[in-house]
């Protein structure tokens, strides 16, 4: 296999491919260019920046302060770096890597298929929302937090006129305050995490006092604007019907009271989950991460996976946020250079490691403060939909466990279809695993994880292979 010979390759001849042009991918490319390597950078989006520093489409011209708020300087710095790099990297936007074999990526861009050979592959594929279902979440008007943020950032539209934010995690408050700033009416912010959790997490959260303070400020802004913010709620169900969509949400408050909030849109999310499908298809080992209660890529601290020549960086390995992704991207570039027997600065190495250690501690604090509400899965009524793509209910999934003896995720998928639809389990398999674990009466780690299958995202049947010499006009 081509990837096993990294150290024998001259850096000019080594085909390095980075997937993802967010903070990790950009900083990784920057460090590789500085070392004399010209990487290929594939990105699914039309413009660089990733999710947090998503660049607005051409023709939109809101300024950095409006778009990125407190993160404006970081966004500008990253974009400027990227613009400087453009001539020194082989940048291919609007290119989805949908599958791979050792040494070769399968890509699709504007309906045309092409393959990209690699000696080293660096996956900076980021993260998506981590979702816990609630009865009624299949109704029109329910978005993930990340989706709500993209609507605002990329298209300058709100998901509704009266929006509820439900879930837990820093993104809940960030997106809510971004909506507030954009002039949207926020009906309520409903956090499943009780306040005491945040207090207990303070020692870890103080690892990054600036970020902690910024978070507290977001909450204060919401409260100043008289947005009802409730901690420690237990979600009951989303109200509405199939024809007119969501009209409200019913939760139980920390005090045990019933609370109904009217709304015409709801953003839902519980922190993030890494996008690991390509690494999974490459055969990289995963391990169960107790703190966040999910399966993560098994990498060393610089992003080396268990497969030689395959690296992963940023939120695709573990959720530590955009700042950490910049450090991780640089560290992963250094890992590749080290594996190629190229010199790296030990000072820089130490600096980025130290920075990451601080962010790791902070991230542990976040998991303490905003825990994944695993128990909600066990309490879901049988009628609640778990898999929105295939419209499979918790009851149907439980029957796969109790009647058909499936106590492992892939078995339960085969029998019930949970995780078998368009999203390929990206949005339902973690909650599905919790439902299975609760029904089987075992720890969620024991029910395993859903294996990845190509295509990573739905692939049009019109996709045709590029003939040699054909180029895609971008």
């Amino acid at each position, binding site marked *: 296999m081509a990837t096993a010979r990294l150290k024998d390759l001259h850096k000019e001849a080594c085909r390095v491919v980075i997937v993802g042009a967010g903070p990790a991918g950009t900083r990784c490319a920057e460090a590789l260019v500085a070392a004399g390597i010209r990487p290929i950078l594939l990105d699914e989006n039309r413009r660089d920046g990733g999710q947090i520093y998503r660049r607005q489409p051409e023709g939109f011209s809101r300024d950095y302060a409006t778009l990125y708020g407190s993160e404006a300087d970081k966004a500008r710095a990253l974009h400027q770096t990227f613009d400087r790099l453009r001539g020194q990297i082989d940048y291919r936007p609007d290119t989805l890597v949908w*599958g791979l074999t050792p040494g070769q990526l399968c890509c699709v861009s504007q309906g045309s298929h092409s393959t990209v050979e690699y000696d080293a592959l660096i996956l900076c594929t980021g993260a998506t929302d981590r979702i816990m279902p609630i009865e009624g979440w299949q109704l029109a008007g329910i978005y993930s937090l990340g989706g709500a943020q993209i609507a605002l950032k990329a298209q300058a539209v709100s998901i509704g006129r009266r929006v509820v934010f439900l879930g837990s995690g820093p993104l809940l408050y960030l997106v809510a305050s971004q909506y507030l700033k954009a002039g949207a009416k926020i009906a309520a912010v409903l956090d499943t995490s009780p306040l005491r959790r945040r207090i207990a997490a303070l020692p870890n959260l103080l690892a990054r006092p600036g970020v902690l303070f910024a978070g507290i400020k977001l909450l204060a802004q919401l409260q100043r604007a008289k947005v009802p913010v409730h901690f420690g709620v237990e979600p009951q169900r989303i109200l509405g019907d199939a024809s007119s969509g969501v009209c409200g949400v019913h939760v139980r408050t920390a005090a045990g009271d019933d609370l109904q909030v009217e709304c015409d849109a709801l953003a839902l999310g519980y922190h993030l989950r890494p996008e690991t499908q390509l690494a999974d298809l490459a055969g990289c080992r995963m391990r169960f991460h107790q703190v966040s209660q999910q399966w993560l890529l098994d990498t060393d601290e610089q992003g080396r996976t268990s497969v030689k020549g395959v690296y992963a960086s940023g939120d695709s390995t573990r959720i530590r946020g955009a700042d950490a992704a910049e450090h991780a991207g640089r560290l992963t570039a250094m890992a590749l250079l080290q594996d190629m027997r190229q010199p790296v600065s030990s000072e820089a190495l130490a600096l980025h490691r130290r920075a990451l250690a601080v962010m790791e501690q902070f991230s542990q604090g976040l998991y303490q403060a905003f825990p994944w509400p695993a128990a909600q899965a066990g309490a879901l009524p049988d009628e609640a939909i778990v898999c929105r793509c295939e419209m499979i209910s918790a009851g149907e999934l439980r029957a796969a466990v109790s009647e058909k003896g499936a106590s492992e995720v892939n078995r339960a998928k085969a029998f019930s279809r949970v995780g078998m639809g368009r999203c390929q389990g990206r949005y339902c398999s973690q909650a599905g695993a919790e439902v299975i674990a609760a029904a089987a009466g075992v720890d969620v780690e024991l029910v395993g994880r859903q294996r990845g299958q190509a295509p990573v995202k739905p*692939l049009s*049947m019109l996709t045709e292979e590029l003939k040699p010499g054909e180029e895609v006009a971008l």
Partner: protein
Amino acid sequence: MGAASAFFLRQHGRSVVLLERDVIGQYASGVNFGNVRRQGRFLGQLELANHSFALWKRLPQLIDDDLEFITSGHMRVCYREDEIAELEAYAATPEARELDLRIYSGRELHTRFPFLGPEVKGGSYAPHDGHANPRLAAPAFARAARRAGAIVEERCEVTSVEKVGGQFRVTTSNGREYRAEQVLITAGAWGEKLSAQFGEPVPLITKGPQMSVTEPVPYVLKTVIGVYTKMPEEELYFRQIPRGNIIIGGCSHTKPDMLNRRAHFDPRSLLKQLQQMRRLVPDMTNLNIIRTWSGIESYLPDSLPIMGPSGKVEGLYYAFGFSGHGFQLGPGVGDVMAELMSTGGTNTSIAPFGIGRFADYTEQQRRAS
């Protein structure tokens, strides 16, 4: 094969232990296309296939489970005029009479199946053939076997099978030992390893089928379509399920990773399938493929299975190597093997599938070692 055999052996009142190294139906039975097709089979296998078909129709009563079996019809199409004559010759054989095959060509073909592309020249329509859900089948048989009193052990790997005195001794990697008067080897791609332990190696090779599925769309393509051709890259088949998804298979195989027991779908296989789909059904274009998969199947050089008693050891039986077309046969094989093992004979012809046909190979292997 193992799960169905265990079920039918219980119907004969036999005491049964079913040992499975991983989980039931994981490698070939659970990942195949799901064709319940008889037409196009080796003529000497049609009696067994017909027997199996009769069981398929009775399965909900027999095993009290729904395997999503639908007699939707099966259409075997070709791209060349001279292949129509071959389809006609097959349909005209006495063995195929029960299939009620009807050959279509020209204008009639395209009126009856208007979605087929202009390159399609003819086809053989089998009204009673159909499809079922392979993910559900083998586990459902295993559950029925268990309900009927069989002992079913999953994640229990057989390490050796020996005959000591008049009894077989089967040991497993978790340290268990089972004794029995008869042993049936239904280990699919691993069947040869066990038959070789008894001096009956066979030239078995493994292949990973390539399967993909679209997002759901309105249910309109009720007939299973498969291409009859001698060009492997043209070998495409598809079916739509009532939920709306279209399942596509064929065009290529991969080599499974037998060490890690994983078969990977090669993403390039999908491009070949899409290319052939555009040729077969040009209007079915603007859909998305949402998932692909593979599995581990075993093939023999003559594309026929190994089925029947051992040629060397009394009490030992085989049913493996179904060469990519075992799904339809499953219930029939289970029933026939149970009959054979319980009564010493069967009325269904299985003579062409005897392991003895590879006796020369056994001799070669013996000399080589």
